[in-house]
């Protein structure tokens, strides 16, 4: 076994190298039901994190292929930066399956390695039933992984990096 190369922060100027055209419009071979995931990232003082990069990866919608080379960006993969107000917005499709979820990685200045989390587009009872969420069964913190359906295709999901209401992050 060779040893892995360690992670370093993405820094404040990643927009240069990592900004993708239409990175926030996730495409698939078949479109399925539209989902708009919008939210805001704040730090331990409740201040917006205005220089984060949010990457998403998810199952395709019903009837679409899995990992596949897309037309302009890879199918199933989203990449957006937060604005100065800490807000981000991703247009995607509803993942297939009983408990639809989107895996999220957050990179930022001050994060020496990404934070890994997940947002469920399903009600709590269904999320509780996901065997992967067993470590959080009955925990109030599970709520931090569930988006609020705000009508139509819109889902709202806020992220708190530190402190009261801190979002659940996963070990990797």
């Amino acid at each position, binding site marked *: 076994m*060779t040893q892995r*190369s360690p992670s370093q922060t993405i820094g404040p100027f*990643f927009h240069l190298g990592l900004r993708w055209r239409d990175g926030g419009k996730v495409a698939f071979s078949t479109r399925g039901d539209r989902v708009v995931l919008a939210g805001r990232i704040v730090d331990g003082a409740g201040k917006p994190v205005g220089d984060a990069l949010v990457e998403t990866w998810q199952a395709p919608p019903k009837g679409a292929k899995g990992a596949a*080379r897309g037309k302009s960006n890879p199918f199933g993969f989203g990449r957006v930066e937060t604005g100065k107000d800490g807000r981000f917005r991703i247009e995607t499709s509803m993942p297939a399956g009983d408990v639809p979820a989107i895996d999220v990685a957050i990179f930022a200045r*001050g*994060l020496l390695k990404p934070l890994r989390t997940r947002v469920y587009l399903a009600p709590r009872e269904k999320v509780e039933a996901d065997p992967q969420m067993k470590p959080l069964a009955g925990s109030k913190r599970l709520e931090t992984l569930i988006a609020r359906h705000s009508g139509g295709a819109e889902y709202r999901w806020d992220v708190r990096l530190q402190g009261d209401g801190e*979002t659940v992050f996963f070990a990797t």
Partner: protein
Amino acid sequence: MNDMARPGAIDPPYLYPDYLSTRLRSPKEALVELPAGAFDVPGPLVPKGFVRKGDNDLTIHGKRAPLGEKMILVGRVTDEGGRPVRNSLVEIWQANASGRYHHPGDNHDAPLDPNFKGIGRTFTDGEGRYRFITIKPGSYPWRNHPFAWRPQHIHFSLLGNAPVQRLVTQMYFPGDPLLAIDPVYQSIPDAKARERLICTQHLQTGIEMIALGYRFDIVLAGAASTPMGL
């Protein structure tokens, strides 16, 4: 309660107080362990047309050659088992020779170079190899602590062939005296792991009378599942 004391860690902890920005951005709650393999799924796969000819040469996009020391940077991307990470996206960004980023947020009082944007991308080949042509970035001051200067570095982003392989890191240069005072570099707990982020000078990789050669190999996590056809 976080990952400060994890023994044998390769990556830095979230909280590293000497790097001030970690103080309010590091989680305080324990990270939640998911069942093994929860993230070990294949993809994403970047379309071939995503990288265009010339995207791996950062020196040809202005009217003239950029200022600075021209360098050829080559390396190989493998996983922990020594297998090449094939046909996988590598993106880099960096400051110019004066230590200034072509970025509206960079207000360091050093000149921009109209002939250098500092952005490159390429795919690894069938052996996991990549190649960039660029110039050596300058050091620059930052506000972390009095007289703080970042060592010369190039930012690297690797998509790998599965989410568990995703890596964002920085490449440093051999013998840089600023490494000793850089909290970003020093946040990596293991000295050997730190050294893996330092490229090696390799004259024969360069171009005689034109560019100095460097090598920088990168090792990503092993993935149980990589997409078909790789």
